[in-house]
């Protein structure tokens, strides 16, 4: 693992009304690293990641990527930097079809009349989506099927196809294994390992520590909006991490 982080979040704070969701949180992920982000409910895991994906904007703090300070104020900024997020509720529009969801907001077009008209290239989007979906070994036969007609697992696959479709450097997954069966969890963990092999970093929010321990390199623990600890998964046990989550005091200094 190289020393320079791919992404570094420094001193991130965020309040919602009177609730301090995050207080001076630092977070870093290395290139091709899988980081588990754990903590109790309302620890601030999703909030922290939504700041990185541009869904929220931090009140305070900085984000650095590849050694440069970056500004992420909306989802487009984050995507342009190569950061993709798999949301817990998938964030798909059920009324449109699979390829339209995969390419939503980044539709492929063809220029007509010297670029005056950009017409959707539906065939290209459909073909590429089909390839992606086949690679994920999903049993969806038609990419023109509307997403609301799919099962929960298939919907998640569409959401995954979307995050890997655009050469991401970092993929954030919010509770990706929460609603999956054993077989599907195995398949997802395999995918995460493959992403790592391709040099992609993955941040993995989960309640299921065994999943994190089976693929993760490091685990970072949040509690009530503060970062209270970090462990290399090889050098710790699930028991110790649970102890941190449940009863942990802050063992890392506020910077």
């Amino acid at each position, binding site marked *: 693992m190289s020393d320079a982080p791919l992404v570094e979040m420094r001193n991130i704070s965020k309040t919602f009304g009177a609730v301090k969701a995050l207080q001076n949180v630092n977070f870093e992920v290395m290139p091709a690293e899988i980081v588990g982000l754990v903590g109790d409910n309302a620890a601030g895991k999703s909030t922290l990641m939504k700041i990185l*994906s541009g869904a929220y904007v931090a009140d305070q703090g900085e984000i650095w990527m590849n050694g440069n300070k970056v500004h992420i104020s909306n*989802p487009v900024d984050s995507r342009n930097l190569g950061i993709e997020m798999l949301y817990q509720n998938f964030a798909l529009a059920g009324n449109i079809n699979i390829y339209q969801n995969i390419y*939503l907001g*980044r*539709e492929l077009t063809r220029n007509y009349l010297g670029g005056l008209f*950009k017409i959707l290239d539906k065939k290209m989007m459909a073909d590429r989506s*089909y390839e992606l979906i086949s690679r994920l070994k999903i049993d969806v036969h038609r*990419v023109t099927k509307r997403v609301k*007609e799919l099962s929960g697992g298939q919907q998640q696959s569409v959401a995954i196809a979307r995050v890997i479709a655009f050469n991401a450097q970092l993929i954030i997954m919010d509770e990706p294994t929460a609603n999956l069966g054993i077989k599907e969890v195995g398949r997802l963990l395999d995918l995460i390992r493959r992403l790592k092999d391709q040099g992609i970093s993955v941040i993995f929010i989960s309640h299921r520590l065994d999943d994190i321990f089976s693929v993760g390199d490091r685990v970072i623990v949040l509690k009530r909006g503060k970062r209270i600890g970090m462990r290399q998964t090889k050098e710790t046990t699930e028991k110790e991490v649970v102890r941190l989550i449940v009863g942990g005091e802050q063992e890392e200094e506020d910077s």
Partner: protein
Amino acid sequence: MKKERPADTAASGPAPDQKKIITLLKRFSTLIGLFLISAVLALTSEHFLSAENFLNILLQNANIAILAIGMTMVIILGEIDLSVGGIEALGCVVAAWMMVYGGLGIISSIVIALIAGTLCGMISGFFVAYFRFHSFVSTLAMMGISRGLALIYTHGASIYGLPDSFRFIGQGSIGPIAVPVIIAAVVLLLGHLFLTQFRMGNHIYAVGGNIEAARLAGINVGRVKMIVLSISGFCGALAGVIMASRLNSGQGTIGEADLLDTIAAVIIGGTSLMGGVGTIPGTILGVLIIGVIRNGLNLLGVSSFWQMVAIGVIIICAVLVDEIRRRFQEKER
């Protein structure tokens, strides 16, 4: 898709042939409705089934069609536009006023009227997009503002003395087809292409289906809303210009009944008020259903009061068919 695997057809449920027929029925239920209504009217009135009457129906409903095309986009987006009738009146009056008192030519008067209507839509869209107004509220306000301005311009009377050549837009025809019908057909084509072939069209469906997902996908939701309400305003003003030409005058009172007909046509055409679902061709079928019923009942000498009842019943039937269709689909899963 061409890559469909054979396994797909072996799915559980009705046999393939039966399934195909059901899919067709589901898809074309509005069209079938239109044919059934037409068949009944053809059998009961000898005048109904003639080319002349058909062209007449198209002309009578060209304006509603134009309004309904804008409204379809608004409703797919999950919003509503109550101001189309008012903007129609404003467009009618502005065009007439510019020609008669403003000393402007026909083309520039029309352009100014269209800009005025687009601006009205843009203003209601602005409050929806950036102040989180419900479109029901902002377009309700715009309904009053636009109609009020139209009446102020005309002092409640009519503006007469439009140039003769302006009549072509509303009263002329190319071959057997009236110009308003041609204009409506062009708007229909453009609207359909816009919704199906352009990124913005895709975004309209996505925002209507799941606004949060659209936002997270990087779509500027406010901008989409503003553009769509502007389009609806443009359609309103265009209908108003056509009315000015057909009536040979600018009148601030036109189009008062058009709002409900427009919404009715869109709903009969299969667009869901919940947003995310609907097509322009469907809406045109809805317009035709309303037009055919009106026309047929007129030919049969049925009073316009009963026509209102009939259209109400059709709305209920159309939504009921949609609902049954939806439940059927859910069962199929």
